[in-house]
């Protein structure tokens, strides 16, 4: 069970990610080369001029680059959240949405879009973020009241998920017209279309903070391998650690879902794929899961926006259509390797 070092893996993953972003940007109706991408990025960072027409410069800098970067940030964030949730709650089926955050976000978004709450002053993202926090607060309160074990956290999350899904359906079915319903549905399934730099900046900042918090707790997460009592006897303050990590991952998930909708599957499966690659030590698992998730979602989003061009497929649909067979393959190979 010798494993490759974490630094070579991360360096290779980072190189792969940069290359993926650069290449993914060139794919699409407008003809753009990788060299163009570099020169546009360089010119916007203040190193000379790109020499491209303003339109093509705009396609790269205003449309494709932020969208591709948000895909990378979402992929990385969801994979890290999933890995942390699975270890913390000792549940291989846990994902970033297990705390009901995505359902709360959906309800928040729908309330803004369909009912026009906030009178146009509150954006869809802000509504989604508020909904996500509300749902997460409810889950924390409920699980604390029930006794605060990991099982009760999961059960509270499932309860919140059901509640907010029902609220979302209720609002959509009673108040929305066909056109709004279609728009809402697209958002609910996850979409990176129409991404601006504001989304990228917010999500990247939250990702950086949450990732730092999770990495600082990498060894503590390792100690949860044999359960929370075992973690406690290894010197971990279980309640404090759980609260810190649940809050960090819930905030990150809320930020991602608010910008890109509930993109399923990445947070559930990429952590398992990363474990198959580097084992379950979190100092290695978390960075590798982040890079794998980022590369994965960059390519899946590229596929989602090009495969039925000019129509766009919700990225969440594509993650599942591609991810499930890959997942089965990974599980099968892991089982054989044992």
């Amino acid at each position: 069970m010798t494993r490759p070092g974490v630094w070579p893996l991360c360096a290779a993953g980072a190189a792969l990610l940069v290359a993926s972003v650069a290449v993914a940007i060139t794919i699409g109706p407008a003809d753009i080369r990788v060299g163009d991408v570099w020169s546009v990025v360089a010119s916007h960072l203040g190193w000379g001029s790109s020499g491209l027409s303003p339109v093509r410069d705009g396609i790269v800098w205003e449309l494709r680059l932020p969208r591709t970067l948000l895909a990378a940030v979402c992929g990385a964030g969801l994979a890290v959240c999933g890995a942390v949730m699975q270890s913390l709650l000792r549940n291989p089926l846990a994902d970033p949405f297990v705390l009901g955050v995505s359902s709360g976000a959906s309800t928040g978004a729908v309330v803004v879009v369909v009912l026009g709450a906030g009178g146009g002053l509150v954006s869809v993202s802000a509504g989604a973020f508020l909904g996500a926090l509300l749902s997460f607060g409810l889950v924390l309160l409920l699980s604390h009241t029930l006794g605060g074990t990991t099982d009760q956290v999961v059960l509270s999350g499932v309860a919140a998920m059901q509640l907010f899904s029902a609220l979302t359906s209720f609002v959509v079915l009673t108040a929305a017209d066909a056109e709004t319903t279609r728009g809402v549905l697209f958002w609910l399934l996850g979409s990176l279309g129409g991404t601006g730099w504001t989304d990228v900046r917010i999500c990247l900042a939250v990702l950086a903070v949450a990732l730092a918090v999770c990495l600082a707790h990498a060894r503590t997460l390792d100690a949860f391998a044999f359960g929370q009592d075992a973690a406690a006897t290894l010197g971990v303050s279980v309640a404090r650690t759980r609260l810190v990590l649940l809050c960090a991952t819930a905030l990150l998930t809320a930020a991602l879902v608010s910008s890109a909708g509930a993109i399923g599957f990445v947070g559930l499966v990429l952590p398992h794929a990363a474990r198959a690659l580097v084992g379950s030590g979190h100092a290695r698992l978390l960075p590798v899961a982040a890079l794998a998730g980022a590369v994965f979602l960059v390519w899946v989003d590229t596929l989602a926006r090009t495969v039925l061009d000019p129509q766009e497929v919700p990225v969440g649909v594509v993650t599942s259509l591609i991810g499930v067979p890959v997942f089965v393959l990974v599980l099968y190979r892991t089982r054989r390797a044992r």
Partner: protein
Amino acid sequence: MTAARATGARGGAHTHAGRGGAHADAGRGASHTDAGPAEGLRARHVTRTADGRVILDGVTLSPAPGTTVGLLGPNGSGKSTLLRLLSGVLAPASGVVTLDGRPLAALGRRDIARRVAVVEQQADTQAEMSVLEVVRLGRTPHRRAWSPPSGADEEAVREALARTGLADRAHQSWHTLSGGERQRVQIARALAQEPRELLLDEPTNHLDIQHQLDLLALVASLPVTSVVALHDLNLAAMFCDRLLVLREGRTVACGTPGDVLTEDLIAGVYGVRAAVTRDADGRPHVRFLGTLGRPAPQESADARPE
């Protein structure tokens, strides 16, 4: 050492008195409160209740350094709860658990984990881990976030593997190990914590007899103070220096195996008829003859007030 050695109430005399052991402990407890800072891990008159039910009632335990103390008693007698109080995972409703004279509640989890290690009845994980990785978990309380393992960390892990005979298994996957090997790995993990006190909750429960003997011989040979909950009276007699017997959360007897394991006590605590013989070095040997059908008459009068 000698004071602590002489701790227990003489077992046989208290067989029929539910509170007898606890009272005897109380009287003796005062005599060595002056034992100084090196007194190790102690429970004094600890009580624990859950949902209004008393699970542990005024139990005192003060193992002498380096000895192996066996906790005996039927299911639900409070053995696991006492161990969880000793490890600080649970807090007593009254009474106090002290480590070198300081209450556990006043110590950080990390400080406790550097002194007291725990081996559970049956530990398992879904994580794909090697033996080495599991044993390295024992260094958790000694390491800081971000820092790589120090030379001392690696040395402690190496020594723990060697002492448990797992040095050549270090890279084997946890999931390919047998039950006995897993418990051995858990003990290695506990040793990597470099504890002075080791708490084990029925560590032999799921093992075959060879591995039971192996495991307890290993525990008894370790240079730490061990408190081990056991079901098997003969194993307890073979490997423990002292025994504490609980029934319905109360101390029934405390002392050397020879003093504690009498036919009367076994009848009173377990409701079982037994013949106790002694081998050459005075260790009792228990042979079970059958159940009593119902508790002995004086037993029910004393311990079951209804």
